[in-house]
């Protein structure tokens, strides 16, 4: 992922996209096994000590969740949330922290007088703005947004997406947008990663993905969207696999209409079929 870009991560429910966000921040439940590396500015995050990892969260990488209604501590005022976060990372006085909290809120269009209110006194859209303000108050260089608008109304959803894009510009940070909505991806992302059953199946620029999808799953996903120009309904046969015992070879083969015997036997590697456009399919070149 590059500096200043917006990367969209898409996939169906249960494909592992939310786990990805939490894995980057190292906040998966205790006992989860994590393999592989997470490189952030050249450092492998999985090697960090707990203390260093904690400092990194919020300060360099921030995360916004799907459901703003339950993500704030109901017993703390909004102001307390801000002061706590700022002081957890920087040795500043409460007054200073309070000033910065106020600025952050105002930048999100929330009256500063409401800073002493409790979370339950705000609407869903406002809470998501507070969550964004909280995520950005330390000016992180990477913001992970995990389905940030799914629980909101369509118009508020569009408002929040607009705010996110503006802020990305203003803070020159990178945005990792996790979503199941391909329409949103088409509208805001620079590059797209498609996940299926916990594996990356395709990665490329937003134009490559939407105009020249190489993986049959991406193709199916794109044709099953119901949008305003839909004339005919398409769907992908079958249902997502059980992740406890995933299919052999290519995980998509039981649902794939192009599947051959090799798909059952060999796991397809992620190949760069054209500059910057990767896909994990044995027959990716057929679709070029």
């Amino acid at each position, binding site marked *: 992922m590059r500096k200043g870009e917006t990367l969209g991560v898409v996939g169906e429910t249960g494909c592992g996209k939310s786990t990805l966000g*939490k894995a980057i921040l190292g906040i998966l439940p205790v006992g989860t096994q994590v393999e592989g590396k997470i490189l952030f500015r050249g450092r492998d995050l999985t090697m960090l000590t707990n203390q260093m990892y904690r400092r990194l969260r919020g300060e360099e990488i921030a995360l916004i*969740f799907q459901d703003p209604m339950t993500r704030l501590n*109901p017993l703390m005022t909004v102001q307390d949330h801000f002061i706590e976060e700022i002081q*957890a*990372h920087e040795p500043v006085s409460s007054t200073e922290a309070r000033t910065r909290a106020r600025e952050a809120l105002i930048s999100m269009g929330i009256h500063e007088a409401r800073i002493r209110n409790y979370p339950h*006194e705000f609407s869903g859209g406002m809470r998501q703005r507070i*969550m964004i303000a909280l995520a950005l108050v330390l000016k992180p260089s990477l913001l992970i947004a995990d389905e940030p608008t799914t629980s909101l109304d369509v118009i508020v959803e569009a408002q929040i997406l607009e705010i996110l894009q503006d802020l990305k510009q203003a803070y020159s940070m990178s945005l990792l947008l996790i979503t199941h909505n391909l329409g949103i991806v088409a509208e805001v992302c620079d590059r797209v990663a498609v996940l299926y059953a916990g594996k990356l199946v395709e990665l490329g620029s937003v134009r490559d993905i939407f105009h020249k999808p190489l993986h049959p799953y991406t193709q199916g996903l794109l044709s099953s969207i119901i949008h305003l120009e839909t004339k005919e309904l398409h769907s992908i046969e079958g249902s997502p696999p059980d992740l406890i015992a995933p299919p052999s070879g290519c995980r998509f083969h039981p649902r794939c209409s192009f599947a051959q015997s090799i798909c059952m036997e060999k796991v397809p590697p992620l190949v760069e079929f054209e500059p910057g456009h990767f896909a994990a399919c044995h027959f990716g070149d057929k679709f070029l």
Partner: protein
Amino acid sequence: MPKSGSLAAYALTRLFLSLPMLLILLTIVFAVLRVIPGDPIAALFAGRAPPDVVAQTRHQLGLDLPYWQQYIFYLGQIFTGNFGTSIGENYHGKSVLAIILDKLPATVELAIGAMIVASIIGIAAGVVSGTNRDKPSDVALRLYGTIIFVIPVFWLGQILQLIFAVDLGWFPAQLRFSGLPFPNQVTGLYTVDSLLQGRLDMFLVALQHLVLPSLTLGLVLSGFFTKTVRANLLRTVNADYVEAARARGIPEGRIISRYAFKNALIPVVTVLGLQFAILFAGAVLTERTFSWDGMGMLLLKSIDSADYPMIQGVIVVYALIIVGLSVIIDVINGLIDPRVRY
């Protein structure tokens, strides 16, 4: 929007709302004592008194009047604070209220002691258990919580007496005080009174007597605490806002104390309100085991001596205390949780 005054408003409303509950409890007591089929006076005397004495007692207490008259008289008595006079052999002719007020502090002292023991052990065990889910310490503490809670409190008292009083001789097995002149009656709590008097020796004696009964009752109650604290902590340590706080890089210790524990406390406090029922029931048994001269003993003696006005008085005072405590608990909840208030 909540303003500073709203907690007071909440408390007042809550107080007002407790009136129906109080009335229901008083009515139930009335019903049990008079309306239940059978003759309460005869049952109390259990054949120990000739029929004419029974009839006379009944007439004396107005129990031969129509129920509605009795009911009005009964409520009138309670709201004017006049509980009548005793007819039992122990306190014959004395004011019921005065006797009750004399015995009340003993029960309060025991209850407070037990609550202290129960909350210290229960909260500590609950937190350890809840933050170490399914580890051996959790399993052990869960078993502790389940088992200790169903141990008969009087049996536990006897065993503790056997070990610490009879065998080891560390603590006295009976009574609230011995060996020294009684402290001056101020609050009626011997531990407090002795300190007010500046007598450390008296305080130690009072404390020594208090240890075993408090421990007995407190241990049993701690089982309940352990289970509730654990269950609620498990719920909050996995809450969405805890995960979000972790993602913001808030230190783990602070997350446990400020997010998980404080939020877990709200339902615990609510459940605490129900604990009082168990606490006072347990106190009656503990009082008998340790000859602790409180309300429970008074009730037992009154039942023994067919002291009808005294029985009624004691039960009514218990009802008043229970209702009062439930109001206090709700107000405390309003204090912790801003959502309750408005």
